[in-house]
C-alpha cells in the first residue's frame, strides 16, 4: 500500500516542467481545430478523424502526466502569496494591462482543475471517437470536428485559467462553440434559432458575470487602499498582509485566483465594515460580496442552465447527439459549478448568497424534473434531467458541500454522456426516431446499447452502489446536516426539494427506459427492426458505463484523517480535494456561516433511504407505463391539465417571449420610427432646414435691387451709429 502510494506520488516528469507545459494541453486541440477547419476538406475524412481524435487523445495523455505531476509530493505552484501545495502552473506573460489593472496568461492545475482536465479530455476523446461513427454520413464532417476540437480547447482554457478574465475566454469560447454546434445543421432555421437562443441566453448570464468581475476589481482596489491596521489577522501581521496583497495585485492582477483567495482571507474581519474608497464608498463589504456572488450566480445560471436562464438547454438538443453528450451534459454546462468551486472561499463568506444558490439549485432541480415527466423526445427527457442534475450540483454548492457537488459533476459526466450517446445510438439504429412513444422493444435488437443505457440509468437514479448514488447522497446529506447561518430554513427547504426531485428522477428515467427498451415495438415505428451500432460507437458506451460504476470509488468513505485529535472519515473525493478547499474550510471554521454537524451520522440509514426512494419511484414508473397505460390507453381526466402544463414546460418560453422579447422588439421598432425618423430627422434636421429656408424667403424681400433704398438704409444706419457713439462718449 505504501509503495503504491509512493508510486502515485512520484511523477515521471518534473512538476515544474509539467506546469510550464500546461499550454500544450490547450494548444493541441486548438491546432487540431485549425487544421481540420482549414484543410479538412482537402485532407479527406479519414485524415480529419485522425487529426481531431489524435489531438484530443494527445491532450488526454498530457493531462494524465500533469495529473500525476500534481499528485507529486514535490509539486507546488508559485503564487504571490507563497507556493500552493498540490498544484502546478506557470505564467506565460501579460495578456493586457492598463492603469492599475492587469491580466496575465497564467495557467494552474490543481486537484480540482486536474480532475476536470481528465474528464474533459477523457470523455472528450471517447465522444470524438464515437462521432467518427455517428457523423460518418455527414458532408460537413470537417466543420464538425473543427468546432469540437475548438470546444475542447476553450473548455480546457476555462478550467486551467488562474484569473477570471482568462477563465472568461474559455467561458465565452465554449458558448461560441456551443452556438456553432447547436446550429450545426444550419439550413434548418429552427436549429439555427436554437443556437442563437443559447448564445444570447448565455450572454445574459455574462452580463452578470462581467458586472460581478468589475465590482470585484473595485472591492480589491478598496482593500489595497485600506490602512494597514485593519488587515491584520491571526498569524499574519497587517503590514505584511498589506504589502503582499499589493504585490500580488501588481504581479497577477486584481482578478487572478491567488488574489481572490487572499481577498477571502482578508475579508472576514471587514464584512461588517463599509468600503471607504472608490465608487462603492459607503457600501458594506458583506453587502458588496453578496451582490457580487449573486451576479456570478446569474452568470453561472446562464452557462449551467439554472432558473431563470435554463430555457436554452432543452432547445440545444437540436445539435448532433455527440455534441449534446459532450457539451450539454458532461462539460460545458458544469462550468458554473466549477466556477463556484473555484470561488468557494468567497461563497462561504456570504450566507445570503449561499441560501440563494441552494434555493435556485433545488427549485431548478424540481422544475426540470417535473417537465421531464411528460416529454416524449428521448433527448428532451435527458436534457431536462441534465438541468435537474445541475440543480443538484448548485444545491450542493449552496449548502457548502463543494466536494460533493464536484463529485456529482464527475459522475454525472460519465453516466449522462453514456445516456446521451446511448440515445444517439438508439436514434442511429432506428432511422433517427426521437419520440419514445414510437420506440420500444429495442432491448433485444441493440444489446450493448441496452446494457450500457440500463447501467447509466440506474446510476442516475441513485441505486446503491452505482456512482450516482454516492454523489447525490453526499449532496443531500450535506443539505440535511449543514446549516446556513441565519438561513436554516433555506437549507431544510432545499433538502426536501432535493429528496422529492430524487424520487422524480427515478420515475422519469425509468419511464424513459421502459418506453424505449422494454415492451413490444411500437406500431408506428419508423423502421421495423433496429440495428446495433458499429463498435466505434458502442465502444465508448461500454467504457462510459464501466466508468459510471467505477467512479463510485470516489464516494467511498475510506480515508481517515486526524482533525483536532479526532479521527474523521472522509470520502475519497473529499480527501482528494482537501488542498483545494483548504482556505474555504478555514473560513468556515472561523466565521461559522456554515454550521457543520458535530458528530457523524450513521451512513447506513441514508443508504437504505436513498435506495427505497429510487426503487419505489422506479417501480411506480414500471407500473404506470408498462402495466397501467398500455391497458387504459389514457390518463385520468383529472391529470390531463397537469400533463399539459408539464408537457408545455410551464409555458416559460411563451412567458419570456411575451414579457421580454416582444416588448423589446416593439420598443426598438417604435424608437426607430419615432425618435430617429420623426424627432431627429423630421423635427430637428429638417426643421433647421425649414427655418433657414423660411428666413431666407423673408429676407429675400429685403434684397430688392433698388439702389436708392439701399442708400437710404445705409444712411439711417450710419446716423444711428453716430448717435450711439455720441451717447457713449458723453458722460
Amino acid at each position, binding site marked *: 500500500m505504501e509503495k503504491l502510494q509512493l508510486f502515485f506520488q512520484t511523477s515521471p516528469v518534473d512538476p515544474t516542467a509539467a506546469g510550464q507545459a500546461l499550454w500544450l494541453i490547450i494548444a493541441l486541440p486548438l491546432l487540431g481545430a485549425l487544421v481540420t477547419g482549414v484543410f479538412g476538406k482537402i485532407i479527406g475524412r479519414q485524415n480529419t478523424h485522425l487529426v481531431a481524435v489524435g489531438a484530443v487523445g494527445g491532450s488526454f495523455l498530457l493531462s494524465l502526466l500533469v495529473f500525476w505531476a500534481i499528485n507529486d509530493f514535490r509539486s507546488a505552484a508559485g503564487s504571490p502569496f507563497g507556493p500552493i501545495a498540490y498544484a502546478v502552473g506557470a505564467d506565460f506573460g501579460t495578456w493586457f494591462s*492598463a492603469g492599475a489593472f492587469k491580466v496575465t496568461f497564467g495557467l494552474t492545475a490543481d486537484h480540482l482543475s486536474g480532475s476536470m482536465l481528465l474528464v474533459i479530455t477523457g470523455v472528450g476523446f471517447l465522444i470524438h471517437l464515437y462521432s467518427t461513427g455517428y457523423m460518418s454520413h455527414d458532408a460537413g464532417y470537417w466543420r464538425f470536428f473543427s468546432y469540437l476540437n475548438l470546444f475542447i480547447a476553450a473548455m480546457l482554457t476555462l478550467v486551467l485559467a488562474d484569473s477570471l478574465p482568462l477563465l472568461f475566454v474559455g467561458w465565452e469560447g465554449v458558448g461560441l462553440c456551443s452556438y456553432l454546434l447547436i446550429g450545426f445543421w444550419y*439550413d434548418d*432555421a429552427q436549429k439555427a434559432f436554437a443556437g442563437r437562443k443559447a448564445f444570447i441566453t448565455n450572454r445574459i448570464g455574462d*452580463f452578470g458575470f462581467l458586472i460581478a468581475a468589475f465590482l470585484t476589481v473595485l472591492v480589491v482596489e478598496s482593500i489595497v487602499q485600506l490602512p494597514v491596521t485593519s488587515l491584520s489577522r491571526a498569524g499574519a501581521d497587517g503590514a505584511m498582509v498589506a504589502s503582499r496583497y499589493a504585490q500580488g495585485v501588481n504581479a497577477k492582477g486584481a482578478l487572478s485566483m491567488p488574489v481572490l483567495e487572499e481577498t477571502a482571507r482578508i475579508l472576514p474581519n471587514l464584512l461588517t465594515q463599509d468600503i471607504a474608497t472608490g465608487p462603492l464608498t459607503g457600501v458594506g463589504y458583506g453587502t458588496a460580496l453578496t451582490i457580487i456572488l449573486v451576479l456570478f450566480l446569474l452568470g453561472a445560471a446562464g452557462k449551467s442552465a439554472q432558473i431563470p436562464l435554463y430555457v436554452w438547454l432543452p432547445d440545444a438538443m437540436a445539435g448532433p447527439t455527440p455534441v449534446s453528450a459532450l457539451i450539454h451534459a458532461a462539460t460545458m454546462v458544469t462550468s458554473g459549478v466549477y466556477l463556484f468551486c473555484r470561488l468557494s472561499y468567497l461563497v462561504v463568506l456570504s450566507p445570503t448568497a449561499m441560501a440563494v444558490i441552494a434555493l435556485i439549485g433545488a427549485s431548478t432541480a424540481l422544475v426540470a424534473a417535473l417537465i421531464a415527466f411528460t416529454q416524449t423526445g428521448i433527448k428532451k427527457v435527458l436534457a431536462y434531467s441534465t438541468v435537474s442534475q445541475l440543480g443538484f450540483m448548485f444545491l450542493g454548492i449552496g449548502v457548502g458541500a463543494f466536494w460533493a457537488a464536484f463529485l456529482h459533476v464527475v459522475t454525472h459526466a460519465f453516466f449522462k454522456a453514456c445516456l446521451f450517446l446511448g440515445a444517439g445510438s438508439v436514434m442511429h439504429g432506428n432511422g433517427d426516431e426521437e419520440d419514445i412513444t414510437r420506440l420500444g422493444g429495442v432491448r433485444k435488437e441493440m444489446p450493448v446499447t441496452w446494457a450500457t443505457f440500463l447501467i447509466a440509468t440506474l446510476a442516475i437514479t441513485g441505486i446503491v452502489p452505482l456512482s450516482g448514488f454516492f454523489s447525490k447522497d453526499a449532496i443531500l446529506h450535506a443539505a440535511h446536516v449543514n446549516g446556513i447561518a441565519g438561513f436554516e430554513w433555506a437549507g431544510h427547504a432545499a433538502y426536501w426539494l432535493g429528496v422529492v426531485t430524487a424520487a422524480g428522477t427515478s420515475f422519469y428515467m425509468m419511464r424513459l427506459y421502459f418506453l424505449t427498451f422494454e415492451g413490444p415495438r411500437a406500431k408506428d415505428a419508423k423502421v421495423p427492426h433496429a440495428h446495433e451500432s458499429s463498435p466505434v460507437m458502442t465502444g465508448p458506451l461500454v467504457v462510459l458505463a464501466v466508468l459510471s460504476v467505477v467512479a463510485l470509488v470516489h464516494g467511498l468513505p475510506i480515508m481517515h484523517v486526524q482533525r483536532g485529535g479526532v479521527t474523521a472519515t472522509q470520502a475519497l473525493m473529499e480527501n482528494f480535494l482537501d488542498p483545494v478547499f483548504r482556505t474555504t474550510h478555514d473560513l468556515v471554521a472561523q466565521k461559522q456561516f456554515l454550521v457543520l454537524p458535530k458528530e457523524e451520522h450513521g451512513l447506513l440509514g441514508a443508504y437504505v433511504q436513498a435506495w427505497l426512494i429510487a426503487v419505489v419511484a422506479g417501480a411506480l414508473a414500471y407500473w404506470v407505463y408498462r402495466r397501467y397505460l398500455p391497458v387504459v390507453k389514457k390518463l385520468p381526466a383529472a391529470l390531463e391539465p397537469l400533463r399539459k402544463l408539464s408537457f408545455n414546460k410551464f409555458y416559460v418560453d411563451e412567458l419570456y417571449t411575451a414579457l421580454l422579447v416582444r416588448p423589446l422588439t416593439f420598443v426598438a421598432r417604435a424608437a426607430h420610427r419615432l425618435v430617429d425618423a420623426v424627432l431627429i430627422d423630421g423635427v430637428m434636421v429638417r426643421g433647421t432646414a425649414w427655418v433657414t429656408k423660411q428666413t431666407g424667403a423673408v429676407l429675400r424681400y429685403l434684397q430688392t435691387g433698388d439702389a436708392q433704398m439701399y442708400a437710404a438704409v445705409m444712411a439711417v444706419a450710419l446716423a444711428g451709429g453716430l448717435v450711439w457713439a455720441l451717447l457713449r462718449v458723453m458722460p
Partner: protein
Amino acid sequence: MNSIYDSRILNLVIFSPLLVAGLLAFLPRNEKGQIRALTLGGMVLNLLTCLWAYSRFSPTSPVEFQLEYRLAWVDDLGLSYHVGVDGISMGLVLLTGVLGPLVVLSSWTFVDERVKEFHLALLVLQTAMLGAVCAVDTLLFFVFFEAMLVPMYLLIGVWGSEERQMAAMKFFLYTMVGSVLMLVALLAVYFLAAPAGMRSFDYSTLYNGLMSANRELAQYLKANPAGDGAGLSAAALALLRYGPYLFLAFALAFAIKVPMFPVHTWLPDAHVQAPVAGSIVLAGVMLKMGTYGFWRFAIPLFPVASRQFQLLLAALAVVGIVYGAFMCLAQRDIKKLIAYSSVSHLGYCMLGMLAFTAEGATGSAYQMLNHGVSTSALFLLFGFLYERRHARLMSDYGGIAKVMPVFSAFFLIVTFSSVAVPGTNGFVGEFLVLLGSYKSNLPLWLSVAATTAVVLGAAYMLWMVQKVFFGQVTHQENLGLKDLGPREVVAALPFVLLIAVMGLKPQPLLDVIDHSTQRFVARAKYAAGEGPVDDSKVRVVVRPLPKDAVAQVAPTLPPAVPAHPTPIPLPMRPVRLQPAQPQLQPATP
C-alpha cells in the same frame, strides 16, 4: 535612435498618397487596370512608410510628439506646418495605413465608372486623414479635417447607390455645422491662450497658454462652486464665462463626427448610400476623427468645462450605446444595421474617454482601433455580397452559408469580433472601457446600462447572421452566387489576422498608446484639482520653429512658466473688467 530621416518620415506618410495621385493624373482614363494597380502600389507604399514610422516610434520615450517636423508657414498668424505623432495618433496612422490597400482591393471590380477620379479621391482622402491625425498645429488639423470632407462627399455622391445625393448632402451639411462652430471656437482659443505677438495656432501654445488659467479656475470652483469669478485672473475669468460655450462648440463638432446620439442620423444614410470603399473609410477612420478630436482638443483644452459636462456627455454616450443597439434590432437593411452598430460601438469609445480613468482611456483608444478593424471588415465583406446581388435587405438573402462557405466563415469571425467575444480584439477594448467606467466617478447605473449592450450586441448581430446565412436558400438568384475569389480573400484575410492578433497580443499596441493615455488622464484631471500638480507631467513640449522664425512660440522644458517680456494688455474683453494690471500669472501649485 535619432536619424536624419526621422523628422521627415511623417511627411512621407502624409504626402506619399498625394504624390501617387500626382502620378495617377498622367494616366489615361481608360487604362483602368493600370490606375488600380498604381493606386494599390501607392497605398502599399504608404503602408510601408506608416510601418517605418511605427518602427521609429518609441513607446517608452518621454517625448510626447515624436518624429516631429516643423516649418514656418504663415508667421504673422503663428501658423506653422507642424506634424508629429504621439501614441494615439500613431495607432490611428497604422490603422489608416493598413486600411488603404484593402480599400483599393475592395473596389477592384465594384467601381467601373470614372475609375480615375475614384482612385484620385481615395488617395487625396488618405492624405487628408493622415494629415489630420499627425497635425500638431490646430489650424493645420482643421485644414486637413475639412479636406477630408470633399473626397468623401464625392465618394458618396458620385459612386453611391440610388439616393446618394441626399445622403452626401446630409453628410456634408451635418459636418459643416460642426466645423464652422469649431472654427469660431478655435479662433477664440487662439486669442485667449496667448497675448498678442505670441499667438500661435500651435497645440503647445494653446494648451500651455490655457493650462494655468484652467487650474486657477478649477481651484477657485472647488473653493466656491457657484462663485461669479471675483478675484480671478483675466484668463481664468474668460474661461469661466466662455469656456463652457467654447467647449460645447468643439464638442458638438466632434460629436457629429463620432457620431453621438442625437446627432447621428447622417451616419446610417451615408453608410447605406456610400460605395463599399466609402463605407470602409468612413467607419474605419473618419469616425475616429470625432473621438480623436475629443481626446486631443476638446477635453484637454477645457478640462474644467469637460468636467461640468462629463455626466451629460457620458449619459449621451450610454444612450448611444443602448439606443444604437436597439436601432439595430429594428433594421431590415444590413448596411444600416452595421451603421447603427457603429453608433453603439463608438458610444463605448466616448464612455471610456469620459470616465477619465487610465483603464477607460486605454480601452477607448483601443476600441477606436478595434472598431476600425471590425466594422471596416463587416462593410468590406458585405460589399462583396452586395457586388454579387445588389440587394441590401436581409430578406433578400438566407442560406448563404451553403452557397458561399468561405465568405460565411470570414463573416462569422468578424461578427464575433464585433460582438466582443474574448480572444478577439473587441473584447479587450470593451472590457477596459467598462472597467474604466465602473472605476470612474460616473454613477454606477450608467455603467450597468452600458453593460447591457453585451447582450444586445449579440442579439442583433446574430439575428442578422441567421437571417442572411442560415436557413434554406429562399431566393433563386442566390443559388448561383460564387464564393470569394483570391483577390477577395487577400483583402479579407488581413482583417481576420488583425482580429486574432489584436485580441490575443494587445499589449504591444497598448504600450504604444500608454503614454498618450497617461497624459490624457493627467490633463483631464489636472485642472479639475485632482491628479498631479506637477506641470511638467502635462505641459506640451514641442520643438521650436526653425531659428529664422519670428516668434519663439513654444517654451522649452526648463522654465515651467512661459516667460512674458512685459506686462501685456489682454486682448479680450476681460481687459475691460480688470483694467488695473491684468497679468497671465499662473497660480502657483
